[in-house]
């Protein structure tokens, strides 16, 4: 089976490349998403500051990994990209075109699609997977016959033989097969950017390996860019070119994967890496890297949001929020920590 003979893209699908290979595919600046908390009429209005001023860019053909714990806002960031969450402030620029200006939400959804975490709720239990995959194209006006052919072709590419799997319902598939169907559904819209929100987290390790291999193949064949969200650092380290670490709605560190792994600038990144279980029985972890639980995004701590759990916190950390700054002069590697900012007032920072 040759994977290079794709059937011609039906006209209403896909978004052609506009800016060329050096223009970032996605450029997000100051993304903010605040949800109001439903209180009674007598309580004060509170907001969940799920995402607060997040900026990053994703180059074409790159894999950006997003890591963080619960409440950090990575899933909300993903949903902002496909218009499933309200954008309180900030701009999204897709291949040089800004959402709201020269890019409509409909067009953005042609360029970016999302793969959800596998669960019983990720696929409509009443539709066959063929119909689930064909739904997107049908919405765009592709004829039923063409949509079906597209779905069958995709099923082949994701490793599910159409003859056996096309007419199956989600409950007749295993977890790994369902996740492949999820990926197929996202690819049916011919996106350029695929956002994978904990796409392999619910799978067994052996199935996870299969799906990761599949993702690598699909990326090469379809010229895709990935935004890979996960809480599992080992997976992110394997698959990502660059990594972005989020904490409580903000970006704390971002940079090339290997640089981040070898030279962790932010204390939280350090703690996350240290929290990975050891693989050497003679060298087990002896002290927990971090105490306490991730705090609530409704009332984030003042100043640096991490200072309540940070081993290096000082008074300046509670007073002022650190800005993302280059680490050791490397413009590709940024971290938001007072310890790295010269003249910030922190005892470990260099003098200005």
């Amino acid at each position: 089976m040759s994977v290079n003979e794709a059937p011609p893209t039906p006209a209403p699908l896909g978004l052609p490349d506009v800016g060329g290979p050096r223009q970032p595919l996605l450029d997000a600046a100051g993304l903010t998403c605040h949800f109001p908390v439903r209180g009674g009429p007598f309580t004060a209005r509170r907001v969940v500051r799920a995402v607060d001023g997040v900026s990053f860019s994703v180059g074409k053909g790159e894999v950006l990994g997003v890591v963080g714990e619960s409440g950090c806002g990575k899933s909300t960031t993903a949903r902002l990209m496909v218009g499933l969450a309200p954008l309180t402030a900030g701009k999204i620029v897709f291949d040089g075109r800004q959402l709201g200006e020269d890019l409509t939400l409909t067009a953005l959804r042609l360029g970016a699609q999302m793969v959800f975490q596998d669960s019983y709720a990720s696929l409509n239990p009443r539709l066959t997977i063929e119909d689930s995959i064909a739904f997107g194209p049908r919405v765009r006006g592709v004829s039923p016959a063409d949509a079906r052919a597209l779905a069958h072709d995709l099923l082949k590419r994701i490793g599910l033989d159409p003859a056996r799997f096309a007419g199956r319902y989600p409950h007749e598939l295993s977890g790994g097969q369902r996740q492949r169907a999820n990926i197929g559904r996202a690819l049916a819209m011919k996106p350029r950017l695929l956002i994978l929100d904990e796409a392999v987290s619910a799978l067994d390790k052996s199935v996870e390996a299969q799906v990761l291999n599949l993702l690598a193949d699909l990326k090469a064949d379809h010229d895709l860019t990935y935004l890979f969200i996960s809480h599992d650092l080992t997976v992110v380290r394997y698959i990502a070119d660059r990594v972005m670490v989020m904490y409580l709605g903000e970006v704390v560190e971002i940079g090339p994967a290997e640089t981040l792994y070898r030279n962790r600038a932010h204390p939280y990144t350090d703690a996350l890496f240290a929290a990975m279980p050891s693989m050497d029985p003679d060298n087990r972890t002896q002290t927990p890297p971090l105490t306490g639980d991730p705090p609530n995004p409704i009332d984030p701590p003042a100043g640096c949001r991490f200072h309540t759990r940070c081993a290096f916190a000082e008074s300046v950390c509670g007073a002022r929020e650190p800005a993302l700054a280059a680490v050791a002069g490397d413009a590709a590697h940024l971290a938001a920590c007072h310890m790295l900012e010269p003249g910030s007032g922190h005892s470990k920072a260099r003098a200005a």
Partner: protein
Amino acid sequence: MSGLVEIDALTVRFGGERVVHAVNGVSLSVAKGEVLALLGESGSGKSVTLKALLRLLPEGRTTIGGALRVDGRDVLTLSGRALADYRGGEVSMIFQDPALALDPVYSIGEQIAETVMRHEGASRAQAMARALEMLTKVRIPSPERRLRAYPHELSGGMRQRAMIALALACRPKLLLADEPTTALDATVQMQVLLLLRGLQREMGLSVIFVTHDIGVAVEIADRVAVMYAGQIVETGSIREIIHDARHPYTRGLLAANLHGAVKGARLDAIPGAPPSLETPPAACPFAPRCAQARDLCRAGPPPVATPGPGRRVACVLETAAP
């Protein structure tokens, strides 16, 4: 030499609309003060084995065969008051989702006190004191205040600690842990694992820890039993399993683990999927996916080789002539 837990040729079959042979001949033993990890993926039968030890499987449609002994007592014949004493008193369990294990309408202090009063006949005041002692032991911050807290007022990590406090309140001999850290964030998971390790050493508990994550097994276990399709395919100490895995499935699991993976290289994934257990496996259940399978593997059940003390491998290749 008999350990605290002796499981001998355990089989569990679920009847009803869909017949599932969840466990097909599991034999293992756990010594006093030892931590055994039951490692396997979904459908391997590890959770079912655990629940069988506490007789938590649905009585109506479950058929259990084989022998289950804890501290010399036959678990399968317990009933009524003896069973109620056994559960929580001698053996207790912690679950994956603490929100489901804690009753939402009672404070955690009340829940812990209730089990102490039931098992040890203590007064309410004594039971509450023990509850406070347990909450302090599991290092919940401000334990006096948390005694009166309800489960929904606690964060995920604290609920998990509260559940551990509840399980250990009556000083059981055996703790069963059914993937208690799977749903937790990485940093919280490490805290809970270290807590469990510390408590286990301090109280001399035996623990059977079910997990699908090899890293977790490394952090917590002394010995590991790898399960597949309701059978144990390999047993050994954690060092033996990590450094010298013999069974092709164990090797496959270790290879699929991403710790040593090279970026950009293709992963060594085990092809295919586990068998659906409508009928008990007649031959080696892993043979359809095994790269080294031979005709002998499909002919009958694999022989169990014992290359060392406490070390068992259910594979034809172990006993074959080199």
